[in-house]
């Protein structure tokens, strides 16, 4: 039996539609549940759904009895544009901070590969705005310590956007309160809160209140999104920059002298990471 019936395309569309509703759960929706079963059981239906998704610029990240989880390709109409998320604010600094906060939220919940590799349905503990801020500030403090010999950046460098990203984050206050005693949106914690609230609206987090502390717990959708798409995509985008830095290190006279005769194969990436990125746990 081929499995292709007259309504296959229609049902494939229905399944994609269910998957696009972040709060829909197969457990509560018999039609969604049946379509998931059909997706798992019938390779032909699976193929149609995949093609359908592909045509919409969507990619199927995972499917299980908790739902069908989709990601977006860069050119998809369903991909959130950076300015849509920002809500009108558009200075270069704002754009930078938005990006850093987005990555830091994921890095606070899943700092290591093994945190993403653990059982896919395991729920991670909730985080607070303060924890995300601390993740970034610890890294900034480490960079600051390493660059003690060049504390100030020339104005030209800042204007050309060549100032290191950590300096921009570090220059913003962590926690500023308004006259009413609330978190100011101009502080980094206020910015983190705004991002978490946005992610909450998109079904990526749920909020728990413990006393006066807001805690945000990642949903399965967010977990799959980071594990199956965001981490590798970010890595792929970052790789050319890492390669550029590595080649600069390799071409510098000191590096050439230091590396003379040494077997470079396989060691470059680590040298970059050790020099520029990896933060010792005790320092952190």
């Amino acid at each position: 039996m081929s499995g292709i019936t007259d309504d296959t395309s229609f049902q494939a569309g229905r399944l994609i539609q269910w998957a696009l509703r972040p709060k829909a759960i197969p457990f509560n929706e018999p039609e969604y549940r049946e379509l998931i079963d059909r997706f798992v059981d019938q390779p032909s239906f699976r193929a149609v759904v995949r093609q359908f998704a592909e045509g919409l610029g969507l990619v199927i990240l995972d499917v299980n009895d908790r739902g069908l989880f989709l990601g977006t390709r860069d050119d998809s109409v369903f991909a959130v544009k950076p300015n849509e998320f920002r809500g009108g604010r558009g200075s270069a600094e704002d754009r930078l901070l938005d990006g850093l906060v987005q990555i830091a939220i994921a890095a606070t919940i899943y700092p290591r590969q093994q945190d993403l590799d653990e059982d896919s349905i395991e729920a991670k503990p909730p985080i607070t705005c303060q924890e995300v801020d601390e993740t970034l500030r610890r890294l900034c403090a480490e960079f600051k310590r390493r660059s003690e010999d060049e504390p100030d950046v020339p104005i030209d460098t800042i204007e050309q956007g060549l100032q290191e990203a950590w300096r921009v984050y570090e220059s913003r206050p962590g926690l500023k309160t308004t006259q009413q005693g609330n978190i100011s949106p101009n502080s980094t914690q206020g910015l983190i809160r705004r991002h978490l609230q946005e992610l909450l609206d998109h079904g990526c987090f749920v909020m728990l209140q413990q006393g006066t502390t807001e805690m945000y717990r990642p949903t399965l959708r967010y977990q799959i999104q980071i594990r199956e798409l965001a981490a590798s995509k970010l890595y792929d985008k970052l790789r050319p920059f890492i390669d550029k830095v590595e080649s600069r290190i390799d071409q510098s006279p000191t590096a050439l002298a230091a590396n003379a005769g040494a077997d470079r194969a396989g060691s470059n990436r680590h040298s970059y990471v050790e020099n520029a990125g990896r933060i010792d746990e005790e320092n952190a």
Partner: protein
Amino acid sequence: MRHNWLTRDDDLKPYDPLCLTMKVFEILIDQSGFGNEVTRETILRELMPILRALDSAAGVEPRIDRYTRSVDRLLGGLMNDSQRGESFMVEYSDFGPNQTASRRSLSFKLIREIHGYSGEIALQMSSEAINLFLNALDLDIESEQIANEAVVQFQLQRGNFDKARAGAEAARGRSLQYEQKIHRIVEQTKRDIRQVDWRHEAHTALVDANDHVEGRLRIEESVIRSARQKLASIADDGDNHQSLRDIVRLMDDCRSRHLRLNKRLMTARSEFIEQQSRQCFVESLRTEPINLRDDLLAPILSLPSNDAVRISEDTGHAFIGPVMPGVLSLHDLVLWQLQPKRIELIGESEAEKVEAIEANVERQRVDDDVSEHCERFLEGFSGVVGLSDLLIRLEEHACPEAVQDAVTLRVLEHFDPEDDHSIRGINVTIIGPDDLHSKRCTGDDLVIDALNRATGN
């Protein structure tokens, strides 16, 4: 955990964490079934009678907030919350074959939180905790399962329904463990087919699992049948009846779990083949681990700001997932307008109200160089002219449209009595209603009088 609990000098001290833990394990084994998930609320509900009884024995007033704190502390301890849910680590000494001593470490979890079927966060026991509870440290789950079911069958035939029920509970615990084991194999293979020896190990594991599950299904069918026959044959005498009903319920749960596993195993093969072909054609499947904090966030922080912006904006959508493009719906708009004012949450502050006039939005539409041209033109302007004539003249002199718009805007601003950005030495008055009909704007015509400028007034 018990030590920590008892050394804390607070109102939870009288409760014994070990006793509560055993009860939690029992609840998790007994109540985790399909369509039935154990949450924090379930645990609180089930522990409440025990806590009340302990309070009553100690002559303490029962308090729900204390019970909630007890459950939170207990579960927090069992999930290792202080270490963000990491595995517990226990170090122990071991002796090798030639009597050499070595230190080993065992990492394990007891309870974990999972994303449940119903969308709620549910609690699940680890395989190690099931072993601990069933008092069996042998990890051969399959043999244990066969043995447990044989016990149920045997005790049923002998009429020892309590023992049969205990056997059924153990069988159910094993089916939970077995489900986790199969789930792990399938997940790992799906993630990266190269991590699994597909040809030998995974293939054999699947074939064995299939046989095992089919065997279980047969036995479970027969146990349920026997229990139902017994149930029909004995008079309703309370305890025996209850035990038999429990056996049917527990074995039913084992059977539905195995039916689902059977289905999962039947499709696993084609899923693996599909994954294999997909992963074969992926350009470069990464083999090195990606640590989000140290390998991604830290290097991005060290990059020049504009590079960091480019990377984060290119990947931003991957962190959020698909979002439906917004389309204006009048129905939704009306509903939105009719909704009551949103309650302000803790930590939120109301945005300050901005007067539209203070935002100076019209001026923001004009680029700096256009604005500069416009100001230069108005500074050098002299005489008296109508706005419509001025715009015609500008058009004839090939003045850019943006500059024409800026001039019109400045003159209109100057005409506004509340305007603060007056142009030096110019008076603007209205001359004819609806007389302005230029290419780019229409309305009342204005007259611009710069005669006073020469006298410096």
